[in-house]
């Protein structure tokens, strides 16, 4: 197979090369190519030639230079959405991806860094560095941002977006389609089902809402949209290409070149009219901070804001709800499948109460803990073996290791009998011992919660990140007060009693606090450069041709989940870029 080391541009917005090789449609893991074609049986002349452009940067010669109109750094939800939206446009796009098409441990280690703040995930597991980015392990759960997320909330410093929700609504609807939410409907009433009642809480202070929704069919952006991107004709996806630095021209106001390094040892560069950073909430900030040749503090960091305001939606148990009846039906609130959708409901304070009480957004999920006898029975090995054997028998198959499974059932006969009794007597509604109240909250923007460059170096000799994740007293107070109001409303409704599990010290956090892998806020968006890194069009202040995509531009974490908003903002940015490059 010949190796093509340089892609040229045909002048009509499409990449071309002097020769092409026929490979299987998904034979792209094979090394050393930048453009090739396959043949499909249909087409005007019986067989249609489809070209697709994928480059393996490791095979390019050292100091090789790629020229393009638009360079997108990162092929995750943001980068792929942008590329897909700009497919077929009369300009060239170079989509740089740190990894390949599959997971690669050595590339993944580039994401490593140091945690010095609140307990957080190891950074090399919090993001995925291969085509599709972190959508490759995304659970698909979505929740929308509300009107109030976009409005300034005087009690939350730095709150408010530079545009109202109506600006993003059209893109939001399209984002839902890209994510493949088959029924992007969020009103609680529209998910009612017979026999699954909402809790009868009246008075309007606490409401039941759909807090998470996913489609039964997960959207891994890499796999789902790979073909669309690489067949676009005007897009070259460059794999194993790690952007290491953005080089500024002599005016100090334009990115001239993106420096790229490969773990194979070679280094290349990409020259582009416009550069979009779409590498994730931590790596976006890191790249700006690392690009400090002309601007000592890093690009866009004239006001020391790059990397600050790091946020993640955090969760913790805020109390125990002891229902008045052990037969209380929680089916509406538990994760459930409704046709193609999977929905989970929770309890939230109304916007009016949040405003009156000066709180951040908190959603409370209800996690039942069943009677100890049934819990033990449901977790027993014997029951698991019985289920496995029944499943196999139903399919007409012989269970693997039949003897071992049979022994398990006999050994745990009591547990199996209890489970069978429970199933026969209660259906799936086992008696509830108590219900854990699990809160997920939107942290208030906190300038001390930040990503900086640490002393450790990665494989390229570049400084790794240091994450100092912090929360604010208003977050803790919001959790406690939300639990209190919930306790009052549940008591008022006669549903039971709540034991608050949040202490009075607003400066400390319990060990069960956990993030959600949402990296938000490190290049925040606002029209005032003193308060932000990018403007409302996601352009870095004072850098004419540098944009940022992804959740790092969110000024607040919001009450929704980030992926759908990332996609929506990327669609909006794509429209802006189209106007600029036409």
């Amino acid at each position, binding site marked *: 197979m010949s190796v093509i080391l340089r892609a040229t541009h045909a002048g009509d917005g499409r990449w071309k090369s002097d020769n092409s090789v026929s490979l299987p449609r998904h034979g792209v893991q094979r090394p050393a190519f930048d453009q090739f074609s396959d043949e499909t049986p249909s087409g005007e002349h019986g067989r249609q030639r489809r070209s697709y452009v994928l480059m393996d940067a490791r095979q390019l010669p050292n100091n090789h230079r790629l020229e393009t109109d638009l360079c997108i750094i990162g092929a995750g939800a943001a980068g792929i959405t942008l590329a897909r939206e700009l497919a077929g446009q009369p300009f060239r796009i170079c989509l740089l991806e740190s990894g390949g098409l599959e997971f690669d441990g050595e590339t993944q280690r580039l994401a490593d860094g140091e945690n010095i703040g609140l307990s957080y995930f190891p950074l090399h597991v919090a993001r995925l560095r291969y085509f599709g980015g972190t959508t490759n392990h995304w659970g698909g759960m979505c929740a929308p941002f509300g009107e109030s997320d976009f409005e300034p909330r005087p009690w939350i410093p730095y709150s408010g977006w530079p545009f109202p929700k109506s600006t993003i609504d059209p893109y939001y609807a399209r984002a839902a389609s890209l994510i493949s939410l088959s029924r992007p409907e969020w009103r609680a009433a529209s998910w009612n089902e017979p026999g699954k009642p909402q809790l009868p809480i009246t008075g309007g202070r606490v409401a039941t809402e759909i807090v998470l929704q996913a489609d039964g069919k997960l959207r891994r952006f890499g796999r789902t949209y790979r073909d669309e991107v690489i067949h676009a004709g005007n897009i070259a996806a460059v794999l194993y290409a790690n952007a290491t630095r953005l080089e500024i021209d002599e005016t100090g106001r334009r990115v001239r070149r993106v420096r790229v390094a490969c773990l194979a040892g070679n280094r290349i560069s990409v020259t582009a009219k416009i550069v979009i950073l779409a590498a994730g909430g931590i790596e976006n900030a890191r790249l700006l901070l690392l690009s400090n040749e002309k601007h000592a503090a890093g690009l866009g960091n004239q006001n020391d804001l790059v990397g600050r305001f790091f946020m993640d939606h955090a969760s913790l148990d805020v109390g125990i709800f002891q229902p008045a009846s052990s037969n209380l039906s929680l089916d509406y609130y538990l994760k459930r499948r409704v046709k193609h959708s999977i929905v989970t409901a929770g309890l939230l304070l109304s916007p009016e109460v949040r405003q009156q009480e000066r709180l951040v957004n908190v959603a409370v999920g209800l996690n039942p803990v069943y009677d100890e006898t049934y819990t033990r029975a449901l977790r027993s090995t014997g029951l698991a073996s019985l289920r496995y054997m029944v499943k196999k028998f139903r399919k007409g198959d012989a269970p693997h290791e039949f003897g071992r499974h049979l022994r398990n059932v006999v050994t745990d006969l009591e547990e199996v009998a209890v489970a069978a009794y429970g199933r026969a007597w209660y259906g799936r509604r086992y008696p509830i011992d108590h219900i854990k109240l699990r809160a997920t909250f939107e942290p208030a923007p906190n300038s001390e919660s930040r990503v900086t460059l640490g002393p450790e170096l990665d494989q390229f000799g570049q400084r790794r990140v240091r994450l100092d994740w912090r929360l604010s007293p208003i977050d803790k107070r919001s959790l406690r007060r939300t639990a209190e109001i919930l306790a009052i409303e549940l*008591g008022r409704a*006669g549903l039971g009693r*709540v*034991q608050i599990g949040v202490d009075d010290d607003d400066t400390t956090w319990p060990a069960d606090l956990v993030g959600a892998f949402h990296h938000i806020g490190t290049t925040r968006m606002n029209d005032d450069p003193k308060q932000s890194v990018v403007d409302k069009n996601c352009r870095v202040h004072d850098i004419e041709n540098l944009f940022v995509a992804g959740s790092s531009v969110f000024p607040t974490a919001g009450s929704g989940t980030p992926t759908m908003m990332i996609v929506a903002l990327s669609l909006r940015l794509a429209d802006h870029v189209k106007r600029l490059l036409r």
Partner: protein
Amino acid sequence: LTEAVTARRTFLTTLLSAGLCILGKPPLVRASPSHAPQHNTLGLRLADLFTQRASVEVIGLEYLRSARQEQDSTTLSNLISSGCGHALGPHLADADLRECMRRRVRQDFAEGHILTMHGWVVSLTEARLCALVTLVFTSTTQRPLA
């Protein structure tokens, strides 16, 4: 940790029994006697509704410590019955007593008359009920208040 868990469960059981009696769930509540109780006081009748008398004291004592002006059963009885629209006396059937308490508790929550004890958010009436029962038992068993 074990003590903490035990304490939580005890407290929880108390509230469960208190809550259930108030909400009128008979299976977990001691059956009311078919004849008039020997000591026909509100405290003893209420005490009969609890399954975990020892646990009631946990709440009752804590309330009595914080509300020193309510440390006699007459005051507590009056305060508890004040929201029911009629005096709580021997004429009141157990079902009516429960209904009255249920209404009163929910009203407490609606009006914000609540207390937080060991983290549990309980209504003022619930706390007073426990205090009353505790007082009655203390006087019956000649045990001094802690």
